[in-house]
């Protein structure tokens, strides 16, 4: 037989018991208060009970029996008001709590309380009365997901950090209905949801419309930083843009203006992170969007090494090309290059290998075409294929062909077992048109882009909160990525096939380490939609209670409590009539 438990459909009505208790307490104290009576012979009266140790003046006086009867009647009526029921854990409907994980939940006035903090308090109070109920915790970020299927004891603050760039509450509601059929839903957010709420759905929103200035976009290239500063208030904002290292620049922003600003990076700071802060004393109610750190690295030059075994003509051509290309630099001795250019398939620590098959005297004649693109790989995007004279060096290539000259593959790619990218180039430098052809700048730009995609470390050095950090680990890192969070927290991410992915829960600069390699990624809390706090507002909507749920059929006990109260009331009347002035 299932274990039944006693619950209340409207537990908030139990609060009604509080004034009842206060009233009864006042009555008790009033009753307990002594009236002085002068007597002529105290020795004729009882001596009050005293403890064996005696001397104490602390005495508890039991109220008259009717007092307990009245107390029981009031408690029964209060309990009946809260609609008690009997149910089994299996039949009790679960509660799906949808937590708005967007950044705007962090907004607050100085000294005030953010919707995140208010929602946390609300949830703790709300769930206190139903600790064993099944609770489905759903985090509503850009892509809602179930983070826990437990109960009210769950420490939801460990995953509810409100750092996502947006929140899809409607999708989260759908997910809740899908995951727990017949559940009651509770949304905790900072504004009234844009969609209509079903009777089974409650909502608590503790936001308020606030003025805010914010950095809503930021991008760093090798030589400059582009960013957008926005003023979401209805009044002009006099803000200061502080760049470290750099300068302070005063900017006036009109109401609702979004301004694009370009900041040059001096060559001396090309390899250092740049911190940019937008200061505005009157409108910084969301702190996470006022500061960004932009790490170098997205466009860092590709370091490459040219093997000595390459034919002299190939080496000369490569050096000539790479020396004048800002996307490339020659790796220093001892450095693990991003790109290793070799003449044959050999072992290399680099993540990208370019095998240049430059065997002279191949029987095939040079030809100008037709060069044909086999697929849409990054390496061959935008190439002018009909202007170049190409002389293959061998008849076939390993890997997947991406470019061929007639029937002869001249460029192919593959990924080896170590997930290193291997590029095979079938080109005789002696018989091929020189580097002055327009084909080659585009090819080397594509090559640089391909190498950047495949090199070790994070795929991107600058991300927005909610984005996935994807890190390709070097082979000496033992497939483990050590992560240091901006708040000092440490964690370890294990890689799969050399790739470690994680989603940073908070914004700031994250330090990553694998083996001997160390990187930094900046997670920026910038999202224009979240920085605009004009739509936030307080909203409260209760569900229709458990009655609104389709599969809810408990054993209701209100009538039992009312019946007991009526019986006790009748007994009370009998006692009053019999005893009259019962003390």
């Amino acid at each position: 037989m299932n274990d039944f438990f006693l619950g209340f459909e409207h537990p908030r009505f139990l609060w009604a018991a509080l004034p009842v208790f206060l009233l009864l307490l006042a009555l008790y104290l009033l009753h307990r208060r002594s009236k002085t009576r002068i007597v002529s012979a105290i020795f004729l009266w009882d001596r009050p009970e005293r403890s064996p140790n005696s001397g104490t003046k602390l005495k508890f006086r039991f109220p008259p029996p009717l007092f307990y009867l009245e107390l029981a009647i009031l408690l029964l009526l209060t309990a009946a008001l809260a609609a008690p029921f009997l149910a089994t854990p299996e039949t009790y409907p679960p509660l799906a709590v949808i937590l708005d994980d967007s950044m705007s939940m962090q907004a607050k006035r100085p000294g005030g309380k953010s919707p995140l903090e208010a929602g946390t308090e609300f949830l703790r109070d709300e769930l206190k009365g139903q600790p064993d109920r099944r609770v489905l915790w759903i985090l509503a970020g850009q892509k809602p997901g179930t983070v826990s299927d437990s109960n009210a004891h769950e420490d939801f603050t460990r995953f509810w950090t409100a750092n996502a760039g947006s929140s899809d509450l409607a999708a989260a509601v759908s997910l809740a209905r899908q995951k727990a059929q017949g559940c009651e839903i509770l949304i905790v957010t900072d504004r009234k949801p844009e969609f209509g709420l079903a009777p089974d759905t409650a909502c608590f929103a503790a936001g308020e419309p606030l003025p805010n200035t914010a950095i809503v976009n930021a991008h760093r290239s090798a030589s400059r930083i582009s960013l957008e500063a926005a003023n979401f208030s209805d009044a002009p904002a006099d803000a200061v843009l502080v760049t470290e290292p750099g300068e302070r620049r005063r900017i006036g922003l009109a109401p609702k203006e979004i301004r694009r600003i370009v900041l040059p990076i001096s060559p001396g700071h090309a390899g250092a992170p740049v911190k940019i802060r937008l200061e505005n004393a009157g409108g910084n109610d969301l702190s996470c969007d006022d500061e960004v750190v932009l790490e170098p690295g997205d466009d860092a030059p590709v370091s490459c090494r040219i093997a000595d075994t390459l034919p002299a003509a190939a080496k000369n051509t490569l050096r000539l090309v790479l020396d004048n290309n800002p996307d490339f630099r020659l790796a220093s001795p001892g450095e693990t290059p991003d790109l290793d250019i070799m003449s044959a398939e050999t072992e290399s620590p680099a993540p990208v290998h370019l095998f240049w098959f430059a065997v002279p005297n191949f029987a095939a004649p040079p030809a100008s075409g037709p060069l044909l693109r086999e697929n849409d790989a990054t390496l061959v995007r935008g190439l002018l294929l009909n202007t170049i004279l190409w002389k293959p060096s061998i008849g076939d290539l390993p890997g997947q062909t991406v470019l061929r000259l007639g029937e002869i593959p001249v460029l192919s790619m593959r990924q080896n077992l170590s997930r290193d990218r291997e590029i095979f180039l079938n080109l005789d430098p002696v018989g091929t048109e020189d580097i002055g052809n327009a084909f080659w700048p585009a090819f080397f730009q594509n090559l640089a882009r391909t190498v950047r995609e495949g090199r070790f470390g994070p795929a991107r050095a600058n991300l927005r909160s909610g984005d996935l950090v994807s890190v390709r680990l070097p082979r000496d890192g033992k497939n483990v990525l050590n992560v240091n969070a901006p708040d000092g927290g440490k964690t370890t991410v294990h890689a799969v096939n050399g790739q470690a992915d994680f989603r940073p829960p908070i914004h700031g600069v994250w330090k990553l380490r694998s083996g001997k390699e160390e990187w930094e990624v900046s997670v920026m809390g910038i999202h224009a939609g979240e920085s605009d706090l004009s739509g936030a507002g307080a909203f409260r909507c209760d569900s229709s209670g458990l009655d609104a749920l389709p599969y809810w059929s408990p054993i209701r006990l209100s009538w039992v409590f009312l019946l007991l109260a009526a019986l006790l009331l009748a007994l009370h009347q009998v006692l009053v009539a019999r005893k009259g002035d019962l003390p």
Partner: protein
Amino acid sequence: MTMSATGAPPYFRPAVERALAAAGDAELTAPSKVSGLDGQRNGSRTGNAMEFSEYREYRPGDDLRRIDWRVYARSEQLMTKQYAEEVDPRCDIILDHSASMATTERKAGAAVTLAAIFATAAANAGFSLNVWHAAGTFRKDPEPATPYLWAFSPFDAPVSPSANPAAFAGPFFRRGIRILVTDLMGPDDPAPVLSRLADGAKRAVVVMVLDPLELEPEPGSNVMLVDIETGEERELVLNEGVLARYHERLEQHRAMWASAAVSRGVLLLPLSAADFNPVVRCDRLYRAGLLK
């Protein structure tokens, strides 16, 4: 012109007025068993004093020693000699001034009324009268026969006469009537004060006056009882059980005094203050033989 005592509490004068109206011509009854050895004036009734009054036929129960055998020898009739009752009746009225006498104004007024009735009745009967105010020490009132002029002080003495029998040594009249008006609401041994009261008296009376609230206390949920004399406090719920035990102790207390009084020839007369304030009903005093 009638004068009133200065410094007397407000209930004093009305209580005296009630007493005078109630007493009227009533007289304090002298004891019937008087020895006739004392006194200077002839009483109106015959007794066994020294002065011969008349002969009367013998009736069963008469003292055989009073049969005049010479008359029998002459007339063969048993005649007894009757003597004029020669008395100078004396009375001491002692009014307890302890604080317990004023637990209610009704009780205080009743005590004053009783004392004034006895004083007036004694004066009506030609008694030599002393009125004593027992307020810790004994104080003799200079105007005993005129209650209006009593040097009356409020009931505020911390002890009753029974608590301090050593001070109960006023120069009472010898062979007179002694009347103590009190409430006996003290935990003290009744023997000393009763012995002192009866010693040398022709008649000793203790009038025990209690307020109805002392005879039948009202119930109460939480009551802080405060002894008016000692200041001792007891916090109680005055339910049926507590009240029953109070009645039991009160009866035991009265029985103890009654027993002690009987053994010393003292008349104990319990009265309710409600019978003397605000309306005076003296029938119990007449029935007890105190007034005539």
